[in-house]
């Protein structure tokens, strides 16, 4: 009986261990900025990227992280890759400073999902437009299975954007052309309204036709023919998107921050 009880306790403890989504299984140690659990990088690549990320994080006081996993759903953080990413970020207390400022890029290989989560002051450097630019830098690499290239682009683009933000000139969308179009529409609308009032000042014009003087019940139609001549056919191929079937990312928010997620 005692033996059975011991065995049962061991089994229960083992099951409990499996069920608990803890950072122990995510392997996030202090000083680790690149957590390659999916084994996409060689040790040299991983080391080089880690050093780069650490240098950037310390220079700009903003954590910049990379994580690869086989299947994010095994963490128990839900079935949405973006939600899993920000929960992972917070549960591992990532980020720099009291505000836990930083950003993390996660790749999940099972379904080729990715998520980019930006938190705290990092959102000053990477607003929604900046996140799209950052995404554009690495996404094409990952679609071609160029992991090291994609992560390098992520870090180097992130560095330039952090540098600009540090100078007080964060990357922002150029709204000049859009503003110009909006103002042009406003001016045209003003001209249209003015034109309507102008037209009211002129009401003298020649009459077209003489319908008011038609008698005998109107038009007497004596013949009508609608003769079919031919049919022409034009075919246009609809170009596929350059992602070869994979969809692009979409803007997301949650976990107190913002970001993007999608498939590569």
């Amino acid at each position, binding site marked *: 009986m005692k033996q059975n009880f011991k065995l049962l306790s061991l089994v229960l403890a083992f099951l409990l261990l499996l069920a608990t989504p803890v950072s122990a299984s995510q392997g996030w140690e202090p000083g680790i900025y690149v957590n390659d659990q999916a084994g996409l990088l060689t040790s040299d690549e991983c080391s080089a990227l880690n050093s780069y990320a650490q240098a950037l994080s310390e220079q700009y006081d903003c954590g910049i992280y990379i994580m690869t996993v086989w299947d994010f759903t095994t963490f128990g953080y839900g079935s949405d890759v973006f939600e899993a990413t920000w929960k992972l970020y917070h549960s591992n207390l990532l980020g720099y400073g009291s505000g836990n400022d930083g950003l993390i890029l996660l790749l999940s290989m099972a379904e080729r999902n990715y998520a980019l989560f930006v938190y705290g002051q990092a959102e000053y450097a990477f607003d929604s437009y900046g996140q799209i630019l950052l995404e554009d830098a690495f996404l094409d690499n990952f679609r071609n299975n160029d992991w090291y290239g994609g992560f390098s682009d992520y870090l180097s683009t992130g560095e330039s954007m952090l540098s600009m933000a540090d100078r007080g000139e964060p990357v922002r969308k150029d709204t000049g052309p859009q*503003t110009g179009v*909006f103002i042009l529409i406003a001016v045209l609308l003003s001209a249209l309204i*003015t034109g309507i009032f102008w037209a*009211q000042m002129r009401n003298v014009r020649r009459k077209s036709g*003489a319908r008011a003087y038609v008698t005998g019940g109107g038009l007497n139609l004596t013949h*009508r023919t609608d003769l079919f001549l031919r049919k022409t056919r034009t075919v246009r191929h609809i170009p596929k998107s350059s992602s070869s079937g994979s969809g692009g990312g979409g803007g997301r928010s949650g976990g107190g921050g913002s970001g993007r997620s999608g498939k590569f």
Partner: protein
Amino acid sequence: MATQTTNYQCPACTGPLKFSAKSGKLECEYCDSSFEVKDIEQYYAEKEARAAAEAAEEAKNPGADTANWDDSDIQGQWEEGQMRSFSCPSCGAELICDANTAASACPYCGNPTVIPGRFSGQLKPDYVIPFRLEKNDAIAALKKHYKGKVFLPGTFLAENTIEKIQGVYVPFWLYDGEAHGNMAFHTHRTRLYRQGDKEITETSHFLVERSGSVSFEKIPVDASTKMPDEYMESIEPFDYGAMKAFSTAYLPGFLADKYDLEQEDGNRRADQRCKETLEQLLRETVVGYDACVTHSSNIRLRRGKVHYALLPVWMLSVRWNNESYLFAINGQTGKTAGNLPISYGKVAAMFAGLSLPFSLLAYLLSQVLG
């Protein structure tokens, strides 16, 4: 034994049609149209039948288009001394009125000096539509025309001598007639659909033909060269139900303009309006297509009677800022026509007043959506 062959022309482009053994149809190598043999035979049979009918019609009524208008109903001339005549030395207008009425100013140019003269030898009108609006009604109609016009200069209203409005019987030729003819149109219908990764546009082309006729009664053309035609057409229509046989009893208190445009010269405008109306009505029967372009139009006119009538118009000529402005009010319905002066300062103020807030709103919206 030689047999007769028939070569058909393509209805769309008049190119020669050739029988294709592959398709079993008559095909045009110029425009790629194709037809069943029986359809083409029927088409040309109907066309020949119509042509024969029109030829028979022409034989009955030779040169119908060029026939003169029937003016047999127009009355004779005025009696001697029945009317007084005035002429304007400024614009050349010649006005008549009854013996008890005097012209104080020219209704066309506002010149206050009109010269009395002898009047004789003019055609007497067949009909008249008496004035229904009094002078006060005409003034009210004109004030309503000014109202709400934001670009009207303030000084125009202040200096306006609206009380000088005058009632004038304007001479008109009234034309009866009939227009008949045929038109052909090129039309098409488009269908757009997707098949896999292809977008397919199918366009069906048609040749549409319509024939018909329409009758007209009393199309008015003003018979005074002094009266701008567009003003008279702008205050149409007149209610002919109120038209009376002419009597000088309707004239006292009003001026009448003498006609100086002969009816042969006025019929060009009547012809044009008849043609335009038939073309519009035939075009409106072409429905169910995405586009329609006129390919050919053959309209013929059968001219009927012409009548001479005086129609009532209240008129005011205003001189402001070295420009003349004429206002005409239908003396029966009150419809008013007249181009108003425009204050460019007010136009600029409105444009600026709208542009600035709209542009600011546009800027803020672009920043929010940015």
